[in-house]
């Protein structure tokens, strides 16, 4: 029997029982669509996080004060001690490494910002001119923090977009004086609206020179040093250099932590990929269920078509041929089902993409491939038994409809 004939015959018998066929295709396509949509969501979440990290800056190495121990409580914590501070000089020293392109020291705190009668609590970032490039921020109008000595505490301030609107409305804020804490600052720039990234809304902060922030909060320590490596390959070198320089400056004490953004990103990447795999796997269970359904319906089909099977045997069809006819039916069902499922799944992901534009939803190719492969293998695997049963029917009994 020719392959085309087998397909044609199987298609004919599928068409012979439309409702049953449609229900099976539905079950199969729901399974495939579930895998496609769920993995698309997982992949979307992963890409979202990756994009968020990218928006924080590229080739970043971050220095944190203190050392994260692997276990237990650092003894200093009980005594109220903190790790040795990272100073501005430490930050400048890091620049000695030739793997480092630029740095931005960061101090963070909160203070009351007031202008005329209006005042509100704001998050204050103390940094330098380079923060703009290192953190990939964009300036809306005016100018950013001036270049110059890192220790110089000039009284200039750059406002976040939302702060500017709340305090000044539609009038220009540039050149105006505002009060931040107990000091007066002159507004020299306003950030462009950027929205939230990594849970940190840059529209609701104000930025002052790092030395001014230190005076404001009466500290000398830094919250972070953001280091931008020269290029991707220099990241590890920059990290190593930063550690060497800072440990040396801290008398050999390893009291700072240097992490690379890549490492953090890789962790998130791993977690979210695992998550995607997990939801994909759960969805694949529905495919297995669809496979069982196919087996059930095939068994019924065999029972209903006993006479036909008997006839085929009488007409000279060997067992292998009858088996391949039923296989072909199952394969057709699963492939049509997966095709419909793919269409459904892609349409679903598109819809979710429309509803949540910030989530880059798109099903990963491996999930699509895996879904189709699972659908086909379960469909064919679960038809082995019914097909064998059909092939092993006794011709005489089958012809009599028994």
């Amino acid at each position, binding site marked *: *029997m020719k392959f085309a*004939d087998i397909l044609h015959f199987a298609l004919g018998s599928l*068409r012979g029982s439309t409702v049953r066929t449609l229900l099976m295709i539905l079950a199969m396509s729901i399974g495939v669509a579930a895998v496609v949509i769920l993995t698309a969501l997982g992949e979307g979440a992963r890409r979202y996080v990756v994009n968020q990290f990218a928006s924080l800056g590229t080739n970043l190495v971050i220095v944190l004060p203190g050392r994260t121990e692997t276990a237990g409580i650092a003894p200093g914590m009980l005594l109220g001690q903190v790790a040795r501070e990272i100073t501005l000089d430490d930050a400048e020293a890091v620049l000695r490494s030739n793997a480092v392109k630029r740095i931005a020291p960061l101090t963070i705190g909160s203070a009351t910002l007031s202008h005329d009668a209006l005042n509100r609590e704001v998050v204050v970032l103390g940094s330098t001119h380079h923060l703009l490039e290192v953190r990939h921020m964009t300036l809306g109008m005016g100018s950013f923090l001036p270049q110059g000595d890192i220790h110089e505490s000039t009284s200039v301030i750059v406002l976040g977009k939302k702060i500017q609107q709340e305090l000044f409305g539609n009038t220009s804020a540039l050149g105006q004086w505002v009060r931040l804490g107990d000091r007066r600052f002159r507004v020299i720039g306003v950030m462009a609206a950027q929205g939230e990234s990594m849970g940190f809304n840059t529209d609701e902060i104000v930025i002052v020179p790092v030395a001014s922030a230190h005076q404001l909060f009466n500290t000398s320590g830094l919250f972070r040093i953001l280091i931008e490596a020269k290029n991707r390959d220099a990241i590890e070198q920059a990290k190593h250099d930063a550690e060497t320089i800072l440990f040396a400056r801290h008398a050999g004490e390893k009291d700072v932590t240097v992490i690379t953004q890549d490492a953090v990103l890789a962790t998130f990447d791993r977690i979210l990929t695992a998550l995607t795999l997990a939801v994909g796997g759960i969805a694949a269970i529905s495919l297995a269920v669809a496979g069982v359904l196919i087996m059930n319906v095939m068994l019924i089909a065999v029972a209903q078509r006993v006479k036909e099977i008997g006839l085929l*045997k*009488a*007409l*000279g069809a060997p067992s292998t041929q009858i088996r391949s006819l039923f296989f072909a039916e199952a394969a057709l069902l699963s492939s049509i089902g997966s095709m419909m499922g793919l269409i459904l799944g892609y349409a679903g992901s598109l819809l979710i993409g429309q509803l949540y534009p910030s989530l880059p939803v798109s099903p990963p190719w491996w999930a699509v491939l895996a879904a189709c492969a699972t659908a086909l293998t379960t469909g064919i695997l679960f038809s082995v038994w019914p097909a064998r049963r059909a092939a092993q029917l006794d011709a*005489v009994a089958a*012809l009599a409809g028994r």
Partner: protein
Amino acid sequence: MIVLENINRSFLVGDQPVAALRDINLSLADGEYLSLMGPSGSGKSTLLNLLGLLDRPSSGTYLLDGGNVTDLSDAQQARVRSEKIGFVFQSFHLVPRLSAAQNIELPMMLAGIPVAERQHRVAELVASYGLRERADHRPDQLSGGQRQRVAIARATVMNPAILLADEPTGNLDRATGREVLRLLEQLTERGITLVMVTHDAEIGVRAPRQLHMLDGRILSDQLSSDQSTAP
């Protein structure tokens, strides 16, 4: 040429073996026309199934054209059925979703014959069996006589040497039944061996050779000229 030697066939009913055929010896020449008669349960259908290789004897040998076919594997027997044996059933056994032409084509499709040749032969048979207007109709749109003609066309499409008919007129009225019988008898004139099971004596006597069975044994084996060859 068919030769049956000491054929026995017993079935297990519960745990009791029941003999359906006992010591059947029979030989059939090419082109012979034999009617198999007897009451129900006499073993005539079992004998027909054995002749059609749908069933295997419990003991004995079946020689078809000189070759022993009892020892063949299932797949080899299927091949013999495909090439040498045609079946005509009382209830027609047409595939309901296929058209008359497709039903006729079915054995050739199973045998893997090229499409062009298939269409050619189907067209030939459809014409010679007077089914030209009904070729694209499904079985439920055909009359009983037309259905049996489609079934006969299907049984002969592979040019078999043997045609096995199990009560071919059982579901037809008298007039249509005669028409179908004439059709089958014409085939024997072209050299096909025809074995027909019937319980209708009036139909049975039309065959030149008549076999009466009772309780799994051949009761009488007579030629129309009344020469008895029964043991």
